[in-house]
Structure formats: structure tokens, C-alpha cells
């Protein structure tokens, strides 16, 4: 087992162009002993978002995606969609949409 097969890639110059995130909190509405609604309790924060990164043309993945993603989405993160394109001015552009559960274990 060596460095090449343990999953670490080379660092890549990256420009994070935009980050859009929206945080949601699930709520549980409890009933008190008389059956009346009691205080809602928020738990399990969930962050939906998208991130757009630019790398220079020829980068394998259009920039250092994990670094860009880690800056906003630590915890369990589902990358729902990833698109990759070369722009007219020769940058590699990658768009990721994700859902992040920062409190998940």
C-alpha cells in the first residue's frame, strides 16, 4: 500500500466562484399532557447548496473540489449532481449541488 493507492490526489489551483447555501431545520411539534401543542423543537440541521469552482484547462476535475466543498459542507454530504464544462475562455468549470448534514455521524 503506498501514497498513490490511498486516495490522495495532487493539490490543484482552484477558484471558488460562488457558493449558495440554504439551511433548514426539521421541527418536531410536541403535545403537552393536555393534548395542546407545546413548543416546537428544532433538530437535524440540513444544508442544501451549490458550489461553482474553476480550474485551469487540463485539470482532471476542474479544480480542487474537496477543498472547496469542505469549506462549506463538513459532516455527511451527499453530492447530488456534478457537471463539468470547459468555458469559452478556457477554464474548467465544475458545478456541484449537494445536501449536507453537519450533525450526522
Amino acid at each position, binding site marked *: 500500500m503506498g501514497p498513490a493507492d490511498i486516495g*490522495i490526489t495532487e493539490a490543484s*489551483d482552484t477558484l471558488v466562484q460562488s457558493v449558495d447555501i440554504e439551511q433548514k431545520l426539521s421541527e418536531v411539534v410536541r403535545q403537552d399532557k393536555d393534548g395542546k401543542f407545546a413548543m416546537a423543537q428544532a433538530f437535524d440541521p440540513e444544508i442544501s447548496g451549490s458550489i461553482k469552482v474553476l480550474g485551469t484547462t487540463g485539470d482532471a476535475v476542474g479544480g*480542487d473540489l474537496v477543498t472547496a466543498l469542505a*469549506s462549506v459542507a463538513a459532516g455527511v454530504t451527499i453530492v447530488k449532481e456534478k457537471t463539468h464544462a470547459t468555458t469559452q475562455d478556457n477554464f474548467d468549470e465544475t458545478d456541484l449541488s449537494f445536501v449536507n448534514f453537519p450533525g450526522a455521524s
Partner: protein
Amino acid sequence: MQTTFHIIREEFPSANERESRAACVASKNTHGAAAAHASGIGIIDFSRTIEDTPSGAKTVASWAVREGEAEFRPDFQAERITTGELLRRMRDEDWQQANPHHPISYMAQALRANHSLGRAIAEKKPLVSFKRGKFQALLTIGGDKEKQRRLLTRAGFTPTEITEILSAL
């Protein structure tokens, strides 16, 4: 296709390249990622970024591990063995393959993974963060200056600022 990551972030107060590299290699998160790898869960990547903040420079490290399940099926008899036998089993990969669910095999795999991961982390160049408005440029130390100049220009840095940044990298 969806991919599920498990991302861990850790901040270190030092922005010194050598100190932060050593701290990342020694981090319990490196041990955890190595244990995941030894348990059959792939490591997606690691990164180390040096950031300048109003409260001073710091290093932010992140480990991305594939989200999954590890299965442990301990299968061994309680036993007492000599130091010599313990050392022999730790060296003997044939014995470990024949006894994959013995704690000595787990230890040997985890230690090898930690060594490989620590070496890969130490060899990976850090990134340095430069912010301008909504843009964040993450540039490698010793990277391709022309590529970096293009990214900094796109982010809106002036030619003078770009020259200063590139001379510092």
C-alpha cells in the same frame, strides 16, 4: 450519480508550512481516516489550506472519506502469546491474510494505512487562500504561475496584487 462524503475539518493555529504539515500527519483525524481505509472504506481526498483571517493566519485541514459501513467479524480464540510471537505475526502478512479477523491483523492493517496516509499527507502541497469579494482563490505553493495568474485575474485582483501574491507563493 450521487456520491456521499464524510468530511472532517480541523483547524490549526499555525500557518507555518512545516508545523501544520506535522500537525496534520499526527492528527487523530488522520488516524481515523487510515482506520476507515483499513476497514474497507475508501478515502476520497485530503487537503490543507493556509488562510489569513482578521485574528491571524491559520491552517484548515479536511479529510474526505466515503460514507459507508464497516463490518467487523472478530473471529479468534482468547490466547496469550509471547512478545516474539506478537512481533512475528505483525511482520507476517501471510499469517494476517490467513487470520483476517484477528486483532493483530486489524492492528497491522491500520498501522500500514496510517503510515501510507501520513506520507501522502506530508507530500501533498498545501493551498493558500486569497479572498476577493465572493471569490476565493486556492493556490498551490510552488504551482504553475501562469495558471495562477489567470485565476487571480478572473477573481478581480489587480496586476500589482497578483505580482505580490505570486512572488510570495
